[in-house]
């Protein structure tokens, strides 16, 4: 047991932070250079075959920089796409083929047609839409042009999200197998929430040191200091919850026949979902409050972070539902409870 990042993982983080800090037109090329799009691609398809721990580092750093976009989907779908379309694998590894997963919604098979209502964030940014198919370990890939043309824009699509209705012949959809797509996507979404929340706290702390009232920095007041300390505590909770869920998923992938590690991975995701989306949103809300008037403006950076955090959270389900699910796992004598020691399971 060593629940810490390795030196290689720390180096990956440092390279990513540098790339995102430089930003600009060359970002995708720089990420491709770092091998980001091939992180989860099997080595025999040209990737590095790493795991969600590394992918979560990418999303965390992207979240900090406010450029999460559809990176989670790009990473997750790269391997299935390369498998389905071997001739496009160079483009996939270069990050040139973009995939977006809906914020919420699934597809379902009805006769020979695929139907579903999907909420998409920034649909203009994708070549493909990757939507989970109900009841099976499969994801349907829809070419971007079709369903969006048929969709109804609910909010300004470029600023927020829109809802599209999908109703297409089965043959229009590439179906690829992905195990636990929802859990994997949730881990990466939460990793982005971690990064975004981390940035909100960083901005707040900087502001508390800088802003003067009554002849001293406002951060000298205990009332504000203690809010900052509590925010830090939530952030650290988010951090370990996300990193543990990623590590548990990777452990389950390493030993696919081990029932206990699969159950542990599912439980770790439930713990994460019962805590992270709400805590991240509260950190963003607190950051707005700590900034006073400037935090309420459209142009200040926090605006984009709050909006992104709210939207990502919406797609992860109601916190209260996850809490109820946690109760069932925790209290049911038969349920394997993820990261309780064996004895606690036995005792139940």
């Amino acid at each position: 047991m060593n629940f810490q990042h390795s030196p290689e993982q720390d180096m990956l983080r440092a390279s990513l932070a540098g790339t995102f800090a430089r930003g600009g037109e060359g970002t995708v090329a720089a990420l491709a250079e770092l091998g980001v799009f091939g992180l989860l691609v099997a080595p025999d398809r040209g990737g590095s075959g790493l795991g969600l721990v590394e992918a979560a580092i990418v999303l965390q750093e992207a979240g900090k920089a406010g450029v999460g976009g559809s990176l989670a989907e790009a990473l997750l779908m790269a391997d299935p796409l390369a498998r389905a379309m071997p001739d496009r694998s160079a483009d996939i590894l270069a990050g040139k083929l973009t995939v977006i997963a809906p914020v919420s919604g699934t597809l379902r098979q009805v006769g020979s047609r695929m139907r579903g209502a999907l909420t998409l964030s920034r649909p203009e940014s994708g070549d493909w839409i990757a939507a989970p198919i109900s009841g099976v370990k499969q994801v349907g890939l829809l070419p971007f042009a079709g369903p969006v043309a048929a969709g109804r824009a609910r909010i300004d699509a470029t600023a927020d999200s829109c809802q599209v209705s999908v109703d297409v012949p089965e043959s229009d959809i590439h179906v690829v197998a992905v195990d636990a797509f929802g859990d994997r996507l949730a881990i990466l979404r939460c990793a982005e929430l971690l990064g975004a929340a981390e940035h909100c706290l960083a901005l707040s702390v900087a502001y508390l040191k800088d802003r003067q009232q009554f002849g001293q920095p406002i951060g000298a007041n205990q009332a504000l200091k203690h809010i900052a300390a509590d925010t830090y505590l939530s952030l650290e909770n988010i951090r370990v919850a996300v990193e543990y869920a990623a590590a548990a998923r990777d452990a389950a992938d390493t030993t696919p026949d081990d029932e206990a590690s699969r159950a542990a991975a599912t439980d770790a995701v439930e713990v994460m979902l019962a805590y992270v989306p709400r805590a991240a949103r509260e950190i963003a809300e607190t950051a707005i409050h700590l900034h006073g008037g400037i935090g309420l403006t459209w142009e200040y950076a926090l605006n984009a972070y709050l909006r992104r955090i709210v939207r990502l959270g919406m797609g992860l389900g109601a916190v209260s539902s996850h809490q109820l699910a946690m109760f069932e796992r925790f209290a049911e004598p038969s349920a394997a409870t993820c990261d309780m020691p064996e004895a606690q399971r036995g005792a139940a």
Partner: protein
Amino acid sequence: MDISFTPQQQAYRAQVRSWLAANLPQTWMEGGLWPAMSEGEEQAFFIDWERRLYAAGYSGIAWPKAYGGQGRDAIDDLIVNEELGAASAPESINTIGRELVAPIILSVGTEAQKRHFVPRILRMEDTWCQGFSEPNAGSDLASIKTRAERRDGRWILRGQKIWTSYAHFASHCILLARTNIDVSPYKGMSLFIVRMDTPGIEVRPIRHINGLCHFNQVFFTDVEVDEDSLIGPLGRGWNVAVEVLGFERATTRLYRQARFSEELRALAHHALRTETINDALRAEIGSIAAELSIMRCHNMRFISRMSSGAHIGEEASFLKLLWSSLHQKIARLAVELLGPELDAISPIAERFRRVYFTSRGETVYAGSSQIQRNILSERVLGLPRGERRSGR
């Protein structure tokens, strides 16, 4: 990043678990003695239990063998503590000896002190109390007035301590006293080992809101101790205490995470059995269960960092803040869930009455939640100190 335990570690866990299943006394059920005993009998029970733990090799897990420990690593320490907590085995009544005194002596004590005191703590031959807080020095610990003066090769101690847990039965006290009044308050303090039967010490128990005699006032009137009673460098008692304290305080929470989970599960099962559960309570239990799992992740992170030799600093503050508020949530849930049954004469009522009233102190002792927030905001986030006196 590796969250798995090796086959050897899993086997060790199984070994601890089966030992506990076979050896935890029948009178110890639902995390307490049933039927209830007098305080004196309870104390004797705890001491006996801790001696049996030691005899079985489940005490001082990560301490050096040379001083009576098991010489195992921090992960084994985590495993033993989790199993003790998961079985709701008694928590040590020698925590001051185990978490404060022994680690301080192991880190800055003389060889003679290490050889004498550390094994005696493990064997429960000595039990310890901690003479730090005073009537006018609580959160502001650097304001202590208790003096230690050197005279003819002896130290003369004068002053008053308060909120001193366990002083009414402890054999020894680790005392923080002022040895130099001419320097900054943080610099002139030193740590002493004081036998509680030394002439001039008077202990007056204070009854705790949990109904038990738990803490005390302790008066030191011209108490004479030997020169070798000093622990660590003269005048650096504060630094020694702070460094060791943070580090060690965090390790007990390994036990508590598992213990709290067991408490919460006992409440959940009680509610399911008596059909007093509703969705609001389900969600509350689910929410606390998630936070307990997160606390375990912190413990694993902490043990991993410690094992790789990282400096452990302010983690101790957020762990303290986390576990104390989490335990109070469990205690409040117990009140809500048990309702009038909280006053019943039953194991679960006895247990959660004690949990509730005891937990009220947990955001106060060992550095109040507000002090922990000051530490986090100033030392981790770098916010300005404000108008408090600074002395570090």
